[in-house]
């Protein structure tokens, strides 16, 4: 890796590495080699942080594992892969007293495996040039690495007319490399090149039939020649069979289903059965299996709908655009005023090439809306928004008057079609929806301490608040926080409320061990019903360095995460002040904390900081985070302002400590903040009636927050000429207000829209009066001579 250090600095990747979250618990950062041949023994090296001491390896790789004495960094094992192991990617995690690591996928193949010499031997010749290409046999799997703008080249000898598959496994195993694979013939001419081949999630695959005998050169490089920390790949070369299309794309969880595989090397489509979340060619043919989505709703096939093609609410239909230009149409029975959400899944699954265009029309053919044919709503905020906009379109609509049937058309935006153009469509009777996704892959809760899970949200028309609910918590474990406030209109059109945190804490007495937690996100529909969605999880999340790059995610089981109660942390942060706060807009609050070490030799790495869960700067919540390292206790000042929207959110204190050479991230328990309005006035009870020459009252409800002790002045405004009301100063906490008013004899009869305008002040910390005015309320004043 000759240019590693220099390029690391040059491309700014160092910043990205430093920005990587410090694990709450142990972490696997490398598994070498990343795969092996079934029936073979592999010297496996697991490297990472927090792996010292007693560990237990959880390997799903069929076979056996024995630890070896380490002669270099990492933990060394002898992995004997079972001869009958099915080719695929198997997770490996390591459990220590500090918790369980992230998962790492180990690939099992059917071909002999070698390592790229350049990546394992310091003095190995470079394989960057065509002349220096490393010779490999066929069949073979090469485990290699790409260091920055590296181009790895391999020589293979092919007979005339020989058919060979060359495939790079990288992103499917969690590597940050976005591989490009090129094949060059013996005359130096490009035979073919692949980047983002169909159905393999950004990896590359080609099938070559050699026109002439000779040495061919295979070239592997990253699509951006970027510097990545997780930079491994596996080049598979051999008579590998594969399919490029799968149909259907998914099925209801727990239900076995027969799936059609087509394209690739298959002369004819083949039907295979699956009961899990992958599909593979039978009889050990093929390489890594194809991901297969498992859903939570009943499912059916497009063909099963018959000629009527009528959608059943909340039943997923699996369809396919069979031919270029084809439009699949569905009917949906609706009633005027109903709110519906039509959702699709296709390209985002990685197993369909469809760019879905969704069009909804009424029974008369009038187009009501479309999705997928325009850019999604722009996420303007670049401050802290981490949510991703999911690529497949969804459409929320309220059924117009007179409409009792909808026609829903599905087609490819580019009017393409074929076996690889499957999709899933479902219509729900609900107005708006959301998707919540976990950013973290592991949950290690220290007994007597706390940890945090971050999640992000994709709003699909839903603007309300969401709360994450954790179930199956083991005894002694508490989940707190988990709030994403409602979206609010501010000075800009920025989307603000798109992220949050759930904080887990365990008592010192909590039993160490594993628990499968269920996580749901719960919102509230406009009709008051609950919207409950499983939180999407990832088995593997790999950061990708570079401008605008999203992490590589390998989906995990939706709504579930493996939680572990682990050994007590070396240090804790405790919040001494209240953790459930109710603050009036503009109020300040002091957060008092203490920092305690529980293990000798523990050192604070940096200051305690405040993690603002919604993560949006213009919430105007200011934390004074200048706490010097080494402080054992401190005070954070949180300031809300008059501009702070009334909302419920969570904050947490975070610090980093170093113990026995390992950096630990420690968290306080959640502080839930409910920012509220200081007082509220109700609209005038009414209508208010008045007669010329008479007196009348404007009355309404009044309430105030206990901490809001300022006087409130109420004045009537927009009164008709000839009427007047006395201003009212409200002190204390009366349940109602009443303005004394009078009408002259000259006042004209009629109905008037009048306002009650509240004015008050909020005593700031500096004792200066700060205006605190909320919105006026409106009511109707009816003036009638007979009144």
């Amino acid at each position, binding site marked *: 890796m000759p*240019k590693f250090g220099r*390029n690391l600095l*040059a*491309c700014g990747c160092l910043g990205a590495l430093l920005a990587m979250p410090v694990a709450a618990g142990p972490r696997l950062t490398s598994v070498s080699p990343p795969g092996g041949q079934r029936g073979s023994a592999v010297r496996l090296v697991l490297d990472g942080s927090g792996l010292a001491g007693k560990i237990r390896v959880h390997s799903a790789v069929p076979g056996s594992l024995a630890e070896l004495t380490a002669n270099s960094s990492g933990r060394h094992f002898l992995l004997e892969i079972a001869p009958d192991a099915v080719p695929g990617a198997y997770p490996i995690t390591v459990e220590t007293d500090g918790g369980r690591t992230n998962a790492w996928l180990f690939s099992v193949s059917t071909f002999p495996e070698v390592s790229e010499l350049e990546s394992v031997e310091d003095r190995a010749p470079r394989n*960057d*040039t065509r002349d220096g290409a490393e010779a490999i046999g066929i069949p073979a799997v090469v485990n290699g690495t790409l260091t*920055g*703008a*590296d*181009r790895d080249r391999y020589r293979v000898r092919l007979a005339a007319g020989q058919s060979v598959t060359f495939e790079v496994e990288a992103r499917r195993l969690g590597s940050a490399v*976005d591989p490009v694979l090129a094949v060059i013939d013996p005359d*130096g001419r*490009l035979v073919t*090149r692949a*980047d*983002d081949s169909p159905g393999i999630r*950004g990896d590359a695959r080609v099938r070559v039939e050699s026109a002439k005998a000779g040495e061919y050169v295979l070239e592997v*490089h990253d*699509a*951006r*020649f*970027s510097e990545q920390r997780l930079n491994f790949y596996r080049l598979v070369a051999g008579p590998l069979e594969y399919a490029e299309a799968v149909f259907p794309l998914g099925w209801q969880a727990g239900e076995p289903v027969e799936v059609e595989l087509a394209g690739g090397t298959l002369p004819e489509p083949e039907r295979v059965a699956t009961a899990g979340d992958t599909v593979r060619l039978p009889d050990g043919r093929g390489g890594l299996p194809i991901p297969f989505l498992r859903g939570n709703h009943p499912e059916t096939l497009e063909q099963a709908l018959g000629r009527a093609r009528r959608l059943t609410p909340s039943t997923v239909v699996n369809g396919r655009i069979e031919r270029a230009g084809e439009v699949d149409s569905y009917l949906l029975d609706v009633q005027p005023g109903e709110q519906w959400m039509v959702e699709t899944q296709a*390209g*985002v699954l*990685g197993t369909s090439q469809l*760019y879905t265009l969704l069009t909804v029309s009424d029974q008369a053919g009038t187009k009501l809306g*479309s999705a*997928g*044919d*325009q*850019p*999604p709503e722009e996420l303007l905020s670049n401050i802290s928004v981490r949510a991703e*906009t999911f*690529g497949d379109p969804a459409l929320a609509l309220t059924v117009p008057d007179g409409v009792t049937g909808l026609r829903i058309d599905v087609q490819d*935006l*580019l009017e393409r079609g074929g076996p690889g153009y499957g999709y899933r469509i479902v219509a729900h009777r609900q107005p708006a929806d959301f998707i919540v996704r976990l950013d973290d892959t592991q949950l290690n809760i220290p007994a007597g301490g706390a940890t945090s899970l971050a999640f992000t949200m994709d709003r699909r028309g839903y603007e309300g608040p969401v709360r994450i609910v954790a179930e199956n918590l083991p005894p002694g474990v508490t989940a707190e926080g988990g709030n994403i406030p409602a979206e609010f209109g501010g000075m800009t059109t920025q989307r603000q409320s798109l992220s949050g945190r759930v904080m887990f804490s365990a008592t010192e007495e909590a039993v160490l061990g594993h628990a499968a937690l269920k996580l749901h996100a719960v919102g509230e529909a406009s009709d008051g019903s609950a919207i409950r969605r499983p939180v999407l999880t990832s088995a593997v999340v790999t950061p*990708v360095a*570079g*401008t*605008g*790059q*999203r992490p590589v995610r390998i989906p995990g089981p939706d709504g579930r995460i493996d939680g572990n109660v682990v050994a007590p942390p070396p240090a804790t942060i405790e919040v001494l002040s209240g953790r459930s706060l109710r603050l009036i807009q503009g109020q300040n609050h002091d957060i008092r904390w203490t920092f305690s070490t529980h293990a000798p030799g523990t050192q604070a790495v940096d200051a305690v900081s405040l993690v603002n869960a919604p993560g949006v700067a213009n919430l105007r919540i200011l934390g004074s985070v200048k706490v010097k390292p080494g402080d054992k206790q401190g005070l954070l000042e949180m300031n809300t302002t008059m501009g702070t929207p009334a909302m419920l959110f969570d904050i947490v204190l975070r610090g980093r400590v170093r113990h026995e050479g390992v950096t630990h991230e420690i968290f306080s328990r959640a502080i839930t903040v409910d920012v509220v309005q200081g007082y509220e006035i109700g609209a005038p009870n009414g209508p208010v009636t008045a007669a010329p020459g008479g007196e009348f009252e404007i009355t309404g409800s009044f309430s105030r927050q206990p901490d809001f002790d300022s006087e409130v002045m109420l004045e009537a405004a927009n009164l008709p000429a000839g009427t007047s009301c006395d201003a009212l100063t409200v002190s204390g906490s009366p349940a109602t207000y009443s303005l004394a008013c009078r009408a002259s004899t000259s006042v004209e009869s009629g109905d008037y829209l009048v306002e009650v305008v509240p004015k008050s002040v909020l005593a700031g910390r500096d004792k200066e009066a700060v205006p605190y005015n909320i919105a006026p309320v409106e009511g109707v004043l009816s003036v009638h001579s007979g009144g």
Partner: protein
Amino acid sequence: MNRAIVLTCALAFLAFGLPADAAERDQERLTFLRDVMPILNNTGCTAGACHGSAKGKNGFKLSLRGYDAEFDYRALLLEVSGRRFNRAVPGASLMVSKPSMQVPHEGGLRFERDSDAYNTIVEWISQGAPFGDPALDSVAALDVKPASVFLDRPGERARLQVTARYGDGSTRDVSSLAVVESNSNSTASVEDSGAILGERIGEAAILVRYEGKFETVPLTVLNPAPGFEWKQVAAHNFIDEHIDAKLKRLHIQPSELAGDATLVRRLYLDLTGIPPTPEQARAFIDDPDSARAKRTRLIDELVGSDSFVDHWALKWGDLLQSNRKHLGEKGMWAFRQWIRDAIAYNQPYDDFVRELLTSVGSTYQTPASNFFRVNDDPKLAMETTTQLFMGVRMVCAQCHDHPFERWTQNQYFQMAAFFAAVGMKPGFDSDEQIVYLRGDDAEVRHPTTNKAVEPEYLLASAGMPEIGSLADSREAMALWLTSDKNPYFAKAIVNRVWSYFFGRGIIEPVDDIRNSNPPINPALLEALEADFIASGFDLRHLIRTIVSSRTYQASMETNDWNAGDEVNFSHFVPRRLPAESLLDAVTIATGARPDFPDVPEDFTAQQLPDPHVDTGGFLSMFGRPDRESSCECERRNDLSLPLAMSLVNGPTLADAIAHPDGRIANAILAGRSDGELIEELYLSAFSRAPTPQELDQALTYLSSGTGRAAQAQDLLWALVNSNSFLFNR
């Protein structure tokens, strides 16, 4: 009452409602179109610096150079409540009192009181200020005599007679009113009197404009020296025949062929962007075969080579603005690869352009669609398309009809409408975009009428598809654009490619082709165009044809008859190496490869994907384009003092010369003798061996200093700072 009705009423009143005595006056009938508008144009009232500017001047706006007579008439007649006219006392009208400075006029005196212009306008007002009939009173054509001008020597003068022919068949001598301009004032200038003065030997185009019509008259200033006798130099192909025909007419004798050492460097630089290695240069020079045969062999070897592909991919990357700033990193790499493949497979040029302009799909999977990521607006896409592939600049016509050309504002938006349906949305991968065709509501609106504009070809062309018959109107546009009937398409590319080998186009600038900017050698351009079309739009064929010509292979050494010629391709004109070639030349000369970030370490400067990658700012400083536009003008090839100082004192050169793995270090470590070392340095820098005198001087120098290596470094430093190194000669 809306404005149109007001105008109609006003025109009707003025044309037909005049007092009987005025209408029946026995005088010449004057009209705005025929008589007044030329005065406004000739006196500069409609100039861009005056009332023709975008916002007018002092509240009074006229169309630029009078392209919209109706607008101007309306402005004069109806604005400021008609106060620009005093029908009772025409001489008191602002329209004459201001330009004659009877009342203050910021624009100064435009004509004297009682001048012809003054009297004409006064008389026109007194006649009721009629607009005239556009069908009868507009200029239909100009007749200019003579059709071409030959001046026997610099200092001679000529005059043109300009006759306007109107719609009603009448004619008028407008010699004194027509605007006459030269496209090369250093060759021939136009005096205030209208006379054309020959300034120096050469050619110029004289543009004659009058009332929206123009004609171009070629002018030649001959070499007056006695004794010219044409000596035929063997022609290699038709290019030389057309060049010779013109040179002969101009009394210019072309230079002889350049020597092998010069030509091997020239061919390598022009075809691959990189000079030959010492070994390549030596092999070519020592080849005993005939010059013609080995040159042809070398051309065949280089055209289509990997480095040829890199070099031309760089040029197209510039023109198509392949830049991660616009396309994202992966999009940029994918676009570069697509361009490279097109060149590597020698994709026919028309096919290449059609694929580009009709692309849809992922910017990663269908990289040609990155064109629309750069040109993400119908107007921008149209402007880039016309400028890049037709050499036509439409940008002026966005705001007004083109002042010097036929293009109108309507045509601007009609052409832009071809791209109205192009939409873009994010794809599934990071920074990926999907280019697609939007639905029926996609349209381009005309800014004046606010009505949707239907797409229409810029020029009518027989055999082209009905635009509405294709779902994607871009397909019709691409077929029309790349048709061999399109008079601009092939012309634009052959002219552009020509310019890469000669430093200037046959039409210059290469992306400003218009009737008022004629080619320096029309017959040559036509022949190249025809040959290119006949070859199936084969760019390699075009390149081979050009570099095989004697004209290209001519020496830069001049003779008595062509020393002053810079434009007729009678001798090779040295060109400063472009930034990337200069850096690659430094690499060849010094043997030290620059350290480019973010690309494979064996990349040459020719292979760099975009302006993001540089080494110490060298490439940017030496004029590499930022790829912010498709204009050739983005690349700078000047050699200013700061650039010279950078070479003399800058680290790029100094570090490369003293590189531990560089040429000098390796040669000395390999035990080369002084003579061998000097020869290698000359070959690596100049692609030739030193002359005996140079060798003697160098040997003396190497043995005179404190150390051989240091002296050799000095010698190499001197070589690479010389014109022989910095220029392609």
